[in-house]
């Protein structure tokens, strides 16, 4: 966990009183909506279809048990008893009243949580691997660098009004769980031949109307130069980014229009002129941040303790363990993923009761720490293997032990037309129907890793472009239709999926996905050829044929 300092606490508290005053003035009519809108957006408050929505940042996806309890409290006290974990390591509350928002913010501030920069054309919550700091083989904990970037970018005067929102993601593992290639800036922490730690910097990734996979702008930037290099990128973007057209304002469009070489050259010029300025990170600064992260006092344990061996006789436990438990960097420990994708449920939602229970379990079994991943699931990052059977029983009781992580029912979906004012179509009921179709665990397991992503409009909050199967809602003559893409992926081999044909109506979507999955099962070369690899080998044709032959 990271311990915030006095500067952070003061900043957050000042923000709360400021916002309390702004809300008061809005409700009294002193501020018009036009004047107020910017102010509420700066505090994560959007207007959705039926209510205000409040987006709260979870920096680099790490939550303490106490912070989770506060989320539960906000859900229960000011909302309708639940919250929604999003793909950007945020949580959203869907039914909050403007009049209650200052109190909610104040309650969250007590545990160091805020909603700054969760909206607007600034640097958004900096995201990373939900296994940061515990994944075996990681170069080092990427959250140290997330925190440096967070401090650097919070209320940065020059970059608070960029042409458009700006999203960073960092990974420090060979397998990218943070989707860095679809972010404005993606950072891959690695060591160069000299053993020095630094970053491969990618730029210009993004989804939305015009999806792009990020391109490498510099293969190695030493850690000490990270901030100055990032600042050089932001300056070039701030200067040349298209402010005239909201659809062309993201950095991905600038990179595309200039070409990566030209863009890189501009950045290089800017950087060389300023690289040795105050932004250079001395070792002491990095060490200071590093020292503010505390790690658990792990016990000396060994892998595969007797408790685990005994429990593996229970097929339900074993199915869950094989699916949801991952190796930890310390012997005798595991990382446990909590599925927020129950069969028939809305992806990513957790009730206040579940949040409280998870906080208690984190205290009991995971040194009080919880992680939020971009797949809209949670994780307990430090669980002793001998505790797994007891933890499993407790998780199962509260409905977060569905053994479907990375399977076809582990669907990423945006709120869609049930909540979102920009939506064309619904997303959640499509996800729910799909989970019912594939509810049988043996079937889902036989299919293997398969990511289904659903967005209710072209803004792509559900990352449909990079779903192995992507579903995008479009409207046709007032009816809900869905375009289906296949072959997308968001990891280190990120690609944008290919459209298989004309959009299909709401009622057909689950059938179409079933057809695609059946075609895959019939065509795969071996049982362990994953869906995504089969699509790569076969192309979309056989799937297209299967889907449209009878439609």
């Amino acid at each position: 966990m990271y311990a915030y300092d006095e500067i952070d606490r003061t900043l957050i508290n000042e923000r709360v009183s400021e916002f309390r005053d702004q809300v008061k003035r809005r409700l009294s009519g002193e501020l018009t909506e036009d004047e107020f809108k910017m102010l509420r957006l700066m505090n994560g408050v959007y207007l959705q279809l039926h209510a205000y929505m409040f987006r709260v940042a979870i920096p680099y996806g790490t939550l303490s048990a106490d912070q989770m309890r506060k989320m539960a409290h906000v859900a229960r006290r000011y909302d309708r008893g639940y919250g929604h974990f999003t793909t950007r390591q945020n949580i959203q509350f869907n039914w909050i009243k403007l009049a209650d928002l200052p109190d909610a913010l104040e309650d969250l501030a007590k545990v160091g949580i805020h909603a700054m920069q969760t909206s607007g054309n600034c640097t958004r919550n900096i995201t990373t691997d939900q296994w940061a700091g515990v994944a075996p083989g990681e170069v080092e904990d990427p959250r140290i660098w997330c925190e440096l970037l967070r401090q650097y970018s919070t209320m940065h005067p020059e970059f608070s009004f960029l042409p458009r929102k700006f999203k960073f993601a960092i990974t420090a593992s060979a397998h990218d769980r943070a989707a860095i290639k679809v972010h404005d800036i993606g950072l891959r922490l690695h060591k160069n031949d000299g053993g020095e730690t630094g970053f491969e910097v990618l730029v210009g990734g993004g989804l939305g109307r015009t999806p792009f996979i990020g391109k490498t702008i510099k293969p190695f930037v030493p850690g000490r130069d990270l901030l100055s290099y990032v600042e050089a990128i932001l300056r070039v973007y701030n200067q040349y980014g298209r402010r005239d057209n909201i659809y062309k304002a993201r950095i991905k469009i600038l990179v595309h229009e200039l070409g990566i070489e030209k863009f890189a050259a501009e950045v290089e010029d800017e950087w060389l002129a300023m690289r040795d300025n105050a932004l250079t990170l001395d070792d002491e600064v990095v060490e200071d941040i590093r020292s503010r992260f505390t790690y658990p006092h792990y016990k000396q344990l060994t892998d595969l303790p007797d408790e685990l061996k005994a429990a593996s006789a229970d097929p339900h436990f074993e199915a869950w363990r094989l699916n949801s438990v991952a190796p930890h960097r310390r012997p005798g420990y595991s990382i446990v993923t909590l599925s927020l994708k129950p069969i028939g449920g809305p992806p990513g939602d957790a009730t206040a009761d579940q949040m409280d229970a998870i906080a208690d379990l984190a205290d009991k079994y995971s040194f009080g720490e919880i992680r939020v991943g971009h797949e809209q699931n949670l994780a307990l990052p430090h669980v002793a293997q001998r505790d797994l059977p007891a933890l499993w029983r407790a998780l199962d009781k509260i409905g977060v032990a569905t053994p479907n992580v990375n399977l076809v029912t582990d669907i990423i979906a945006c709120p869609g037309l049930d909540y979102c004012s920009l939506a064309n179509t619904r997303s959640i009921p499509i996800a729910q129907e799909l989970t019912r179709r594939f509810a049988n665990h043996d079937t889902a397991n036989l299919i293997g890793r398969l990511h289904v992503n659903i967005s209710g409009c072209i803004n792509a909050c559900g990352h449909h472009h990079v779903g192995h199967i992507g579903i995008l809602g479009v409207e046709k003559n007032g009816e809900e239709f869905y375009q289906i893409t296949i072959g997308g992926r968001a990891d280190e081999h990120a690609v944008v999926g290919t459209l298989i044909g004309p959009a299909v109506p709401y009622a057909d979507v689950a059938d179409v996905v079933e057809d695609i999955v059946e075609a895959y099962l019939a065509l795969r070369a071996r049982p362990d050829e994953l869906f995504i690899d089969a699509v790569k080998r076969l192309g979309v044709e056989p799937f297209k044929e299967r889907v449209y032959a009878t439609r």
Partner: protein
Amino acid sequence: MTSPLQQKIKITGPSVITANRTWDGAVIYRDGQHGWTTDLSSAAVVRTADDARALLTESTADDVGAIGPYIAPVDVKDDGTIEPGNLREQIRRQGVTIDLPVPA
């Protein structure tokens, strides 16, 4: 923002003015008595562009009470009941089409 007075307004059928209530965000409709209602059946229905513009202008003037008033289509049934004219408005009136994680 273009003022509603200057906006070209085209309506294709019976319409209402809808918005969200400022203090809690709830869905509201303009009624015929210069106020707001949460009940679509009490909304004022307009059928011409001029009437729509007049009602929108009046609604927009109430900035303290409502956010983002706009014209929304409705169906008026033979028995006089008013139904939302599209799925979006149907969901705004009835709420989400799914079971909420915590029953109300």
